[in-house]
C-alpha cells in the first residue's frame, strides 16, 4: 500500500512547480497553464484523501474544481483574446496600463 503522505508530497511538489511557473514566466498562456497545474495538484490531494478516508466527498469537490477550472479557463482565454486585440502582445510585463 502506498502511504497517504507520498500522494500529499507529490501534490505539494506539483503545486510548488505551478507557483514557480506562475510567478516567473512572461508568456500569459504559460501562466494560465501554471494555474491549471496548481488546480490539478489540489485535485490529486483531494482524490487521495478521499481514497484513504473512504469518503466520497473529496471526489465531489474534485468534480466541482474541474468544473470551475473549465469555466475559468474559458473566460480567461476570452480575456486574453481581447487583450491580444488591443495590445498585440502576449507578454504580461509589457501590459502596465493599470499602473497607479
Amino acid at each position, binding site marked *: *500500500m*502506498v502511504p*497517504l503522505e*507520498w500522494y*500529499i*508530497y507529490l501534490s*505539494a*511538489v*506539483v*503545486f*510548488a*512547480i*505551478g*507557483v*514557480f*511557473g506562475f*510567478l*516567473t*514566466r*512572461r*508568456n500569459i*498562456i*504559460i501562466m494560465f*497553464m*501554471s494555474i491549471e*497545474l496548481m488546480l*490539478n495538484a489540489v*485535485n*490529486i490531494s483531494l*482524490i*487521495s484523501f*478521499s*481514497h484513504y*478516508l*473512504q*469518503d*466520497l*466527498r473529496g*471526489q*465531489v469537490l*474534485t*468534480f*466541482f474544481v*474541474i*468544473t*470551475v*477550472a*473549465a*469555466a475559468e*479557463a*474559458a*473566460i480567461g*482565454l*476570452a*480575456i486574453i*483574446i*481581447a487583450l*491580444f486585440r488591443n495590445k498585440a502582445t*502576449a507578454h504580461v*510585463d509589457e501590459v502596465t496600463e493599470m499602473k497607479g
Partner: protein
Amino acid sequence: MLPKVFFAYFSVMITILSLLVITRRNPVHSILFMLGLFFHIAALYVFLNAEFIAAIQVIVYAGAILVLFLFVVMMLNLREEMLERRYIGAWPVGALLSVTILFSLFSALKVIPQGPAGRYGIEAIKSETHTAALGKILYTEYLFPFEVASVVLLVAIIGAIVLAKKRIKT
C-alpha cells in the same frame, strides 16, 4: 510492491512533465507536455479507485481545456515568441517563494491530523459502480452546489462570447 512501483513511475513522470510544461520556450510544446501530464494524472486517479473522475479529467481537461489553449496559442506569432526572454527579470524571487511554499507544505503535513473515516469503502464503491456512487451523493447531498456549478458554466459561456466577440465596425 507493485503499487509502489506504479506510483513511483507516475509520480516521477508527473513531476518531470510539470517541470517541462513551465520551462519550454515554445508554447505548443508546453501544451503537449501538459497533455501527457493530464493522462498520467488520470491514470493516478484510476489507481485511486476514482474512475469517473479520471474520465472527467481526460474529457474536460485534456479534451476541452487544452484544445482551448491551443486555439489561443494559434494567435501568437511563434517565430517571434521563440526569440523572447522566457522568465521575468526577478525570477529568483519567484523561485525562492515557491521553494518556501514547498517546504512549508511539507512541514504542514506533519502537523495536520487526519480526519475520521467515512462510509464509502472500496468495496462499497465497487458494489455499485463508482459513477453510480458519485451520482447518488451528488444529486442528494450536494444538489445545490451542483446547480450552482451549472450556473457558473452558463456564466462562463456567456462571458466568453461577450468578451471575445468581434466588434462589427459600422
